[in-house]
C-alpha cells in the first residue's frame, strides 16, 4: 500500500512540472514585455527594471524558468501587481474559503443525490422517480452561474431569506454551496439509481427478501453497500470538477475564494496572481485525484496495488 502511494505521488511529479511550465508560459505568451506584465500596468519604470533584474528576464527562457521554479519551491510566487503583497499570502487567505465551499457543496450533493437516487431506484417508474430523473437531466444541463443568479433572485431578492453574496455565517453558505452542488447532486442521483437497480436484480437481494427481511433493510443494508463503489467513483471525479465550478460560483456570490481571485486578477491583468491561482487549482486537482485513486484502491479489492491498475 505504501509503495502504491509513493509510486502514485512520483507519477505526479512530471505532471506538476508540466503544469509549472504552462503556468510559466502564461506571461511569456501574452504580447508585450513580460517584466511589465509581472510588474503591472501601473508600475513605475524603476519597479519594472527591478522585476526584470530579480527574475533574470533579460536572460534565456530556460534560466527564467529555473528562477521561476526555484522561487516556487521556496514558496515565493511573486507579488501582486496591484496590492504588492506576496501572492502566497493572498492565496493562503483565500484557499480555505474555496475548500470550505467545495466541501459543503459535496456534502449537499451527496445527501440530495444519494437520497433521490435511492428513493428513485426503490420506487422505480413512480412519479417521484420520473420527476427526479427529469430534474437531474435539467440539473446537469443548467449553467451553474445561471442557477446561482436564479437562486439569488428567488431567495435573496424576492423572499429575502438568505444573503445574496459574501461569506460569513452558515446562512451565507446555503446558496453558493447549493448552486455549486446541484449538478453534482444530479449526477450522483443518476449513478446511485442505476447502480442500485443493477444490484437489486442480483440473487443475494432476492435471498434477502425471501428471508423475510423488510424492504427497508434490504435497500439500506444490503443493496446500498454494493451500490456504493460507482457512487464514490463519481464523487471523486466530481470533487475536482467542483473546483472548476467554484470559479463561476464564487464570481456569482462574491465569495472570497481562489476562483474569484483568479477571475479578478485576469480581468485586471494582475498576472502574478493569475499564475498563482491557476497553479494552486491545478495542484489541488492533481492531489485530489491521487487521493481518490488511493481511496479506491483501499475500497475496491479488485484493484491491485502491485500493478497500480485502476488509473
Amino acid at each position, binding site marked *: 500500500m505504501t509503495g502504491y502511494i509513493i509510486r502514485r505521488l512520483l507519477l505526479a511529479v*512530471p*505532471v*506538476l512540472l*508540466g*503544469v509549472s511550465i*504552462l503556468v510559466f*508560459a*502564461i506571461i511569456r*505568451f*501574452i504580447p508585450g514585455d513580460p517584466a511589465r506584465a509581472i510588474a503591472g500596468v501601473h508600475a513605475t519604470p524603476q519597479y519594472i527594471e527591478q522585476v526584470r533584474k530579480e527574475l533574470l528576464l533579460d536572460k534565456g527562457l530556460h534560466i527564467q524558468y529555473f528562477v521561476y521554479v526555484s522561487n516556487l519551491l521556496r514558496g515565493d510566487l511573486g507579488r501582486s501587481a496591484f496590492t504588492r503583497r506576496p501572492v502566497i499570502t493572498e492565496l493562503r487567505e483565500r484557499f480555505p474559503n474555496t475548500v470550505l465551499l467545495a466541501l459543503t457543496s459535496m456534502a449537499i450533493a451527496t445527501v440530495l443525490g444519494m437520497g433521490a437516487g435511492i428513493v428513485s431506484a426503490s420506487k422505480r417508474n413512480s412519479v417521484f422517480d420520473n420527476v427526479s430523473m427529469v430534474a437531474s*437531466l*435539467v440539473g*446537469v*444541463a*443548467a*449553467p*451553474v*452561474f*445561471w442557477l446561482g*443568479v*436564479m437562486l*439569488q*433572485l428567488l431567495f435573496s*431578492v424576492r423572499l429575502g431569506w438568505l444573503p445574496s453574496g459574501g461569506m460569513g455565517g452558515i446562512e451565507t453558505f446555503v446558496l453558493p454551496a447549493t448552486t455549486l452542488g446541484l449538478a453534482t447532486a444530479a449526477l450522483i442521483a443518476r449513478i446511485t439509481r442505476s447502480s442500485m437497480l443493477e444490484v437489486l436484480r442480483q440473487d443475494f437481494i432476492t435471498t434477502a427478501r425471501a428471508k423475510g427481511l423488510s424492504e427497508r433493510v434490504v435497500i439500506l443494508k444490503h443493496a446500498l453497500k454494493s451500490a456504493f463503489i460507482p457512487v464514490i467513483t463519481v464523487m471523486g471525479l466530481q470533487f*475536482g*470538477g467542483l*473546483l*472548476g*465550478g467554484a*470559479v*463561476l460560483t464564487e*464570481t*456569482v456570490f462574491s465569495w472570497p475564494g481562489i476562483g474569484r481571485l*483568479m*477571475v479578478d486578477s*485576469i*480581468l485586471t491583468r494582475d498576472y502574478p496572481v*493569475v499564475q498563482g491561482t*491557476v497553479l494552486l*487549482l*491545478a495542484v489541488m*486537482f*492533481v492531489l485530489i485525484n491521487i487521493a481518490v485513486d488511493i481511496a479506491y484502491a483501499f475500497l475496491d479489492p479488485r484493484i491491485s496495488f502491485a500493478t497500480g491498475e485502476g488509473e
Partner: protein
Amino acid sequence: MSSKLQVAERAVNAKDTEFQQVLRHLRRNRMAMAGVAILFVFLLGAIFAPLLTTFDPTRPDFGNAFQKPSATHIFGTDELGRDVFARILYGSQISLLIGLISVSIGLILGVPVGALSGYYGGKLDLIVQRLIDIMIAFPGILLAIVIVTMLGTGVENVMIATGVASIPTYTRLVRGSVLAVKELRFVAAAKVLGISDLRIIVRHILPNCMGPIVVQSTFQVATAILWAAGLGFLGLGAQPPDPEWGAMLSKGREFIRTAHHLTTFPGLAILLMVLGFNLLGDGLRDALDPKSRKFR
C-alpha cells in the same frame, strides 16, 4: 411472442446498414427525439433569425430600454433597448457555431493523436499520455480560462480555447478504443496482407471506434457551449455587443432586481440547448451500444 417478433424483425433488418439500425433505434427513443426536436428548433431559429424577427440584435434603441416582455418584445428589451428575443435568436448562431467549431478542433487534433498513440504505443504513447496528463490537471473550464488568458477574449479565441480544452477527452477515448480494436483478428489479417499502418488505422480501426466518438462529440458540443457561456459570463469570452448568451446573462445580472428577464431567458436558452445535445447524446449512446439494443 415478443421474442418471435424480435427474430422476425431481425430477419427483416438483416439487410439494414448499421446506420439505419441506429437511426431506427434512435427514433423509438422518446427522450432522444425530444432532444432532436429542441435542437431542430434552435437550428431553425439560428438559420432563419433575420426572418423571425425584425429587430436588430446589436443596435441600441435607448427609448425602449428595460421593456417587460410584451406582444411586441416577447422576451422584453435590455438596458440598451435591444430586443432580447432577437438577441437570443442571433445568440443561438454564436452558440451553435462555437459548439461545432470547438468539437471540430477537438476531433481534428485529438483523434489522430489518440489513434497514433494507441496504435504505435511505446515512447510516442508515453509522451502523448504525459502531455495529456498535464492538460487534464486543469479541472473543467479552467484550461479554457488559461488559454483565453493567453490568447485574449473574443468569440474566435473562445472556440480555440474550448476546442483545445476538449483534446484530452478525444485522445483518451480514441486511444482506448484503438487499444481494444487493434488486438482483433482483422487487424492482424490486414497487417499480414501488407496493408500500410496509416491505411489500417484510417480504413479499419477508426471506423470501428466511430460509435464512442460520435456519442462523445454530441456531449462535447454541450460542454463547449456551457464553457463558452461561462467564459462569456466571466467577461473572458464574447465581448459586447455580440449577443452571446453568457455575456448577456452577465450584463443582465446588474439589473436582476428590476428586470430579471435579462438573465432568465438567456439562461433558459443555454439550458435548453445543452439539454438537447445531452438527450441526443444519451440516445445515441443507447442506440450505438449493442448491449442495450433489444433486437440483438
